[in-house]
């Protein structure tokens, strides 16, 4: 029995909401980072689901782009986190407000 599109979209929405809440509520920079990845993958899931439902590969192509960008972003982001940790000995983002006006 094929799984209904709505199931995929619901899962995607749940994952995305979890990601948003993670970003907003967690203080640890790495967890925030993971939450962002979760949001990206929630979107990827819905893209793939739509692609499969409509029989169109465009959505899957887009997913590859998103994964490539996410990988690059992860590399840069983790490097920044490491650099911050070396400087400040903390990854608590509440303690880091360098851009305060």
């Amino acid at each position, binding site marked *: 029995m094929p799984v209904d599109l709505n199931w995929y979209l619901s899962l995607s929405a749940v994952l995305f909401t979890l990601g948003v809440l993670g970003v*907003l509520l967690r203080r640890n920079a790495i967890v*925030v980072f993971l939450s962002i990845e979760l949001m990206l993958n929630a979107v990827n899931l819905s893209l793939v689901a739509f692609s499969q439902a409509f029989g169109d590969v465009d959505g899957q192509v887009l997913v590859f782009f998103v994964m490539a960008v996410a990988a690059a972003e992860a590399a840069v982001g983790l490097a920044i986190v490491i650099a911050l940790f070396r400087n400040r000995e903390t990854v608590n*983002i*509440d303690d880091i*407000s360098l851009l*305060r*006006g």
Partner: protein
Amino acid sequence: MDASLLVGLILLPPIAVSAFNGLVGLFVPAWRGRELLIGTLGTLAVAVPFAAAVALFVGFDAGYLAGHGPPGEVVRYFTWMATGDLSIDFAYRVDQLSLIMTLIVTGVGALIHLYSIGYMKGDSGFWRFFAYMNLFIFAMLNLVLAENLIVLFLGWEGVGLCSYLLIGFWYTDRKNAVAANKAFIVNRIGDFAFLIGLFVLFHALGPALDGPFGFDYATLLAPETLSLLGGGTALAVALLFFLAATGKSAQIPLFIWLPDAMAGPTPVSALIHAATMVTSGLYLLARLSPLMLMAPEAMAVVAVVGAATALMAATIAITQNDIKRILAYSTVSQLGFMFMSAGVGAFFVAIFHVMTHAFFKACLFLGSGSVIHAMHHVEHDLEHRGLLPGHESEGPHGLRAERLPYDGPFDAQDVRTMGGLRRFMPLTAITFLVATLAIAGLPPLAGFFSKDEILYSAFLYGLNDHSWAYFVWIVGLITAVLTAVYMGRCYLLTFEGSPRWPANMDVRPHESPRTMTIPLVVLAVLSALGGFLGLPHVLGQSWIHHWLGAEYGGPVAEPELELAVSPATEWGLLALGAGIAFGGLALAWWWWGRRGLEFDARLRQRSGALYRWASRKWYWDEAYDAAIVQPLVGGARQGLAPFDERVVDGAVNGTAAVIQRAAGVMRLAQTGVVHAYALAIVFGVVLVVALMLFI
């Protein structure tokens, strides 16, 4: 050779050499010392245009005499600006009037450049001097050769600039810088009138004409264009251009800058403030003569202002002691004569007097330069020997410092320190004498013919129902007597009698070098013979009238006069003119030739208040200071300065303060906490989605 090439040859050398000497002199200090090279280049840059002008002059008349179109040839280089009704060409006009002015400017200019090589020798600004002089020649040629009023205005401003640069040439002396400023500012007033005149003309003609209007003479001065101007517009334009002319040509009310302009080096006074630039106002009036003739009231103003200026300046000239100032007031007075003749419709006579005046006044100024040159050597010599007044000690030769004939320091330009110079500098003396006799109007020298023509045209105009012209004529006669008197005084006090400088048995002036005396001789010959170009009717044909006059195909219009003067009357007027010159000179000899300086004191006693007024220049400077300068400065200080401080500065500072406050509030939003930003983004997204869903 065709005209466009020759016009290029006239205009390009001065500007090219000016730029070369100026830029190389500025960046290569070693070049500045090569005076002979700089001077020769500078002189050639004026001599070549003179040769080109002669070539144009010789090859000129065939075209128009055969009756092919309007007189003159127009050389069009490119369209300068074109917008809507306005289209101005960069074009030059070669016709009888521009040719004669070009010949005067380049001919006299070349002689004065040659003279300057000797006069400016050793001056640290030698290169600068020649760069400015060549730039002046370029601007002046631009002025006289222009085909439209806009290109003319370019030259008009250019000569004003060069005049400023050269009056303030020795700018380290504050007095000179102030004189330069005065000349520039007073000239600007005239220039402003010129601009307003242009605007009025464009307003009246631009929309009315078929094609685009470019202020070109061919269109502007055509009878059908002039007929588009109403009487009131013509009067306004004529008066505005006349006001512009009073600025450049030093007439009441704007003459006050010219006497102060003598602060510049003497060759500058000769070239710019006597022979050429100050005649540009006359040139403008002669060029616009068809327009001027449409406004007889404006012509009357021109004539009366000219007469008043001539008389006033002549009275001042009698009381002056600085040799260059005497000549400066004489220039103002002679320019007044020219305006008189322009005002009675005899524009070609004005140009005739421009020419003869250029010869004898340049000669007089260069002669005075030669005298000043010699007196500077006397001054240095006296200083060297410790004999100048103020040094009480005895000189090495057992001579005591002597008193000068007046209180104050030794002044190399003061005629009271001179006297008897004829023995020491014979060539300067003889040329100065010839020019003095010429300006006094002694027949058959140049000034006699041109001045007689001026008085004759005033008389003739009076005869033809313009009775006010008789008044101008009488003032002209009185001024002619005064001219002979003050010029006689100037010559007699400078060259005759016995020397009046201290220790004059030992300290002797010397004749100037040959580069300075050759121009003097040439100019003296010209001032002796130049008058034969404009013979009066009874003596023969007036060449200059046939060359310039509209009735013979020239560009200079004349009023139609019905009544003519009978030959007997004309002979009488000629005799009167000659008698005046003789009488005035005889008077000068009787007064100053016999008594010398002593007579000045007697004159001061006898004429009382009149003499005091004249010697204080009729209080013009004081009047302007009280009526215009002080109110302006006071008004600025009391009215505008607080306005600037409170309102203008307040607005600027207020704007800054408001922005600063607003920024202080806004910066609270930028916390630097990532969560706050993320939350803002989420709310933003929610808001956008909500808007998309529900609206």
